[in-house]
């Protein structure tokens, strides 16, 4: 059922989250905080080369070191055949995943795991790594995307042939796939155009940079029944991936979601868990592993860097008649960049009759990319939204007005097929236009930019259960790891249905053996899909409560109303009874049929598309090229904010990550293909003093597919910032910075070129 906003008592309020006190007092248990008796420490030996054939691995000296218990290499894992599967976050080839966790035959990037060791202490494990003798035949490497596409580039995989082209190529290539979308007639479209803008844009890979490094504790039981305690975005994902990689039955693994210290998509796959469980199997002891920060940068997924071209054609009146986009995304060492969503998202905000989008998924000697917030969309939108800004300038139009004129609305058919329904893009633009920020004057020397963004926000498989305790307090179990407060939002929805205060419901995250299969916490699907399951479970509990009350009163369940957390006779005809509270009914549960409990599984269909419009003001120090963000406002259609503080937090966090992506974050490589800035010192995420307060404006266009109208909110806010910042810089200094990051040396160089002072 769908709930009427005016009736809501819990949804839309801001209670303290159920896991909050543990997190401010240091008691919450994250991946690296767990210990077990007899525990060993595992460490990974990594390739120092960007591309090398592994000639031999000799661990004998390491194994002789007192305290070393086992070493594993690729030989200890099944050699899995290539097989495409779709597993929640995107396409997954388990052969590639296996070879990413442990190199087989070839090391494909600096930091690629080649062996792992278990020892009685971290220090001994470290020493053992130095004693594992790996002989390499170093191969030529390639880092940059266009270099990797060249005919004479070193080929990473001799069995990789470009997909999506006919006829099927006969020569292996680093281009894993070509993606193509078209709508209308692109040439005819450009022929109608009075004004054309074109641009070439580049972005660098950026890391999710969650503050918690990957960590796990794994124990392989004597009969194979195993436990995994790890920090991930999905305990079910961990269970099924590890089972696949080690050739185990899924039900032989019980995976528990530790508290997770940030993921943003980067913890939607496994790195350490298969190695730790293999080491545990070999030693019969629990094995704990945790990455160093350097390992996180070198060996876990950033998102793609890219090279792009955009061409837009418009009539003099501002009507966009043609749009073309070419995207070349780095996938890292194995295929699977977010090129598909990148190709879909760039123009998803607009109603354009003639569109052509071509994308390439390209492997090179870098760590395999992982999902990162709205995967692919921020890259694509950086190019498109910069081009939109250039178009508005060329047409002499206000940038919001140009977007309103061409903006997607209900009924707009996207270039990738589906027709937008129940979307709030125009309402979001309107809210941006009416904002205090947009109406405020700029100080001399400052610049202002806006940009927009889109994400699909799909649903997927989720389970949740609701249990009424004997005293009428309620526990809810979610299958989704809680990264940003979803226990709060799920508990609030359950409380709303049961009509009890939020504090009466305690939500926990179930392990893989206590709740049904639930996809990863990713794609901002938890409040939508798991929230839907929890709401339905609570509704079933209400039905039971009404039935129990009916039994106590000897009337039919239809004659019972549930309101204010209690059963009431539906009307005078039903009889005159005092209300029975949740506690009253819970107390009599044994006599009325047993425990009151319900579990619901859903596979939530439909998308709840989200749109954002960001406004950014900057000041540029023209002598140093330093850019200061002086004011920032993020406007977003959130459907319905269940817990508004956490919705605002998602928007602010996404915007901050985008600002980092815009200004300073990048992977820097040396000429040998080694990452040169694998630490928080030189991989420069924004610090507190870099940012202003980030104003948020939540537009609520309810999502009819969700009982409370919620849309996913965590993906969209990272899409607009790069172009919003770039457009603000363009406004401030009159120059288009088309290459991310827009770091001080690049800004100063651009100014020098413009001043003829090169």
């Amino acid at each position, binding site marked *: 059922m769908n709930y009427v906003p005016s009736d809501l008592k819990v949804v839309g309020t801001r209670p303290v989250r159920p896991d909050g006190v543990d997190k*401010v007092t240091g008691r919450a248990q994250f991946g690296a905080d767990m210990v077990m008796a007899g525990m060993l420490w595992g460490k990974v030996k990594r390739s120092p080369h960007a591309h090398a054939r592994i000639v031999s691995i000799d661990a004998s000296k390491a194994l002789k070191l007192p305290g070393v218990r086992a070493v594993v290499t690729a030989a200890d894992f099944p050699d899995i055949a290539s097989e495409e599967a779709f597993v929640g976050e995107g396409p997954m080839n388990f052969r590639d995943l296996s070879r990413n966790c442990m190199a087989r035959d070839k090391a494909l990037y600096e930091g690629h795991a080649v062996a792992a060791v278990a020892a009685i202490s971290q220090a001994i494990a470290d020493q053992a790594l130095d004693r594992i003798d790996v002989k390499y035949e170093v191969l030529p490497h390639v880092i940059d995307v266009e270099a990797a596409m060249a005919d004479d580039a070193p080929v990473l995989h001799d069995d990789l042939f470009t997909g999506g082209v006919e006829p099927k190529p006969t020569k292996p290539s680093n281009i894993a796939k070509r993606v193509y979308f078209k709508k209308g007639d692109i040439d005819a479209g450009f022929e109608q155009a009075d004004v054309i803008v074109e641009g070439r844009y580049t972005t660098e890979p950026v890391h999710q940079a969650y503050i918690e490094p990957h960590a796990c504790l794994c124990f392989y039981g004597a009969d194979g029944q195993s436990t995994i305690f790890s920090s991930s975005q999905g305990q079910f994902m961990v269970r099924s991936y590890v089972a696949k990689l080690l050739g185990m039955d899924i039900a032989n693994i019980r995976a528990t979601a530790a508290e997770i210290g940030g993921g943003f998509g980067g913890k939607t796959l496994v790195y350490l868990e298969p190695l730790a469980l293999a080491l545990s199997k070999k030693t019969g002891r629990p094995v704990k592993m945790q990455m160093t920060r350097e390992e996180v940068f070198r060996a876990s997924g950033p998102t793609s860097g890219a090279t792009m071209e955009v061409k837009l054609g418009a009539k003099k009146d501002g009507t966009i008649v043609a749009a073309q986009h070419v995207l070349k995304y780095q996938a890292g060492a194995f295929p699977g960049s977010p090129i598909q969503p990148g190709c879909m998202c760039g123009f998803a905000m607009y109603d354009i009759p003639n569109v052509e989008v071509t994308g390439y998924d390209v492997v090179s000697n870098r760590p395999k990319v992982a999902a990162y917030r709205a995967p692919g969309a921020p890259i694509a939108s950086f190019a498109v939204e910069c081009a939109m800004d250039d178009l508005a300038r060329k047409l002499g139009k206000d940038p919001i007005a140009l977007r309103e004129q061409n903006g997607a609305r209900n009924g707009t058919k996207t270039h990738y097929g589906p027709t937008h329904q129940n979307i709030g893009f125009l309402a979001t633009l309107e809210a941006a236009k009416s904002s205090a920020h947009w109406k405020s004057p700029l100080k001399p020397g400052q610049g202002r930019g806006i940009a927009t963004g889109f994400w699909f926000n799909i649903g997927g498989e989720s389970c949740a259960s609701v249990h009424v305790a004997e005293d009428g307090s309620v526990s809810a179990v979610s299958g989704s790891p809680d990264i940003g407060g979803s226990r709060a939002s799920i508990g609030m929805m359950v409380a709303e249905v049961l009509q009890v205060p939020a504090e009466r419901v305690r939500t926990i995250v179930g392990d893989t053996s206590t709740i049904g299969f639930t996809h990863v916490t990713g794609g901002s699907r938890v409040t939508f899909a798991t929230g839907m399951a929890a709401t339905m479970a609570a509704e079933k509990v209400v039905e039971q409560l009404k039935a129990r009350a009916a039994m106590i009163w000897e009337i039919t369940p239809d004659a019972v109303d549930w309101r204010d957390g209690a059963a009431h006779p539906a009307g005078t005809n039903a009889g005159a009874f005092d209300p029975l509270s949740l506690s009253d009914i819970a107390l009599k549960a044994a006599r009325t049929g047993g425990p009151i409990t319900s579990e619901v599984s859903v596979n939530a269909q439909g998308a709840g598309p989200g749109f954002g419009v960001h406004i950014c003001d900057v000041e540029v120090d023209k002598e140093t090229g330093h850019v200061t963000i002086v004011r920032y406002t993020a406007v977003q259609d959130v459907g319905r904010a269940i817990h508004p503080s956490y919705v605002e937090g998602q928007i602010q966090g996404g915007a901050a990550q985008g600002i980092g992506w815009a200004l300073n974050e990048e992977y820097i490589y040396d000429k040998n293909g080694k990452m040169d800035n694998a630490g928080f010192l030189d991989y420069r995420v924004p610090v507190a003093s870099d940012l202003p307060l980030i104003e948020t404006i939540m537009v609520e266009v309810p999502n009819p597919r969700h009982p409370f109208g919620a849309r996913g909110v965590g993906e969209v806010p990272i899409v607009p910032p790069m172009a919003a910042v770039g457009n603000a810089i363009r406004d401030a200094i009159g120059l288009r910075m088309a290459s991310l990051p827009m770091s001080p040396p690049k800004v100063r160089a651009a100014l020098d070129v413009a001043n003829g002072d090169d």
Partner: protein
Amino acid sequence: MSKHHVTTTINGEPTEFLCETQQTLLDTLRDVLGLTGSKEGCASGDCGACTVIMDGRLMCSCLILGVEAEGKSITTVEGIADGDHLHPVQQKFLEHAALQCGFCTPGFIVAAKALLDENPNPTETEARYWLAGNLCRCTGYDKIIRAVMDAAAEMRGETVG
């Protein structure tokens, strides 16, 4: 060389432990003493997740040798609340939703408490610079700064609307 025997005070409790030279204070807190509230985010002093107060000064416990704790007085996140009574900074972090994943939170709590001990009336800019050594990737710092400013106001006895 055998392990060092260290006698120190942690969160007001006299504490003894054994450690090797290369073990940092963070390693000993987490792996020897089981005080896992201090987190390792970088082990290089760049993220602040391991922040502690030692003899009144804010420090990264990853940049202190365990053996250096000899004779010192150390406050970790576990020692900020007074029993069940949360410190105003902790309470305001909860009220303002100033945490999402919560991993950086212990470091922020300790650093913010130290800020307000030293400067009860910081400006927003002072708070931002004081906390610049604590990385948060989830919140964009907005709610953290609001929570710290609100905690400061409350500790000064100002009523906040």
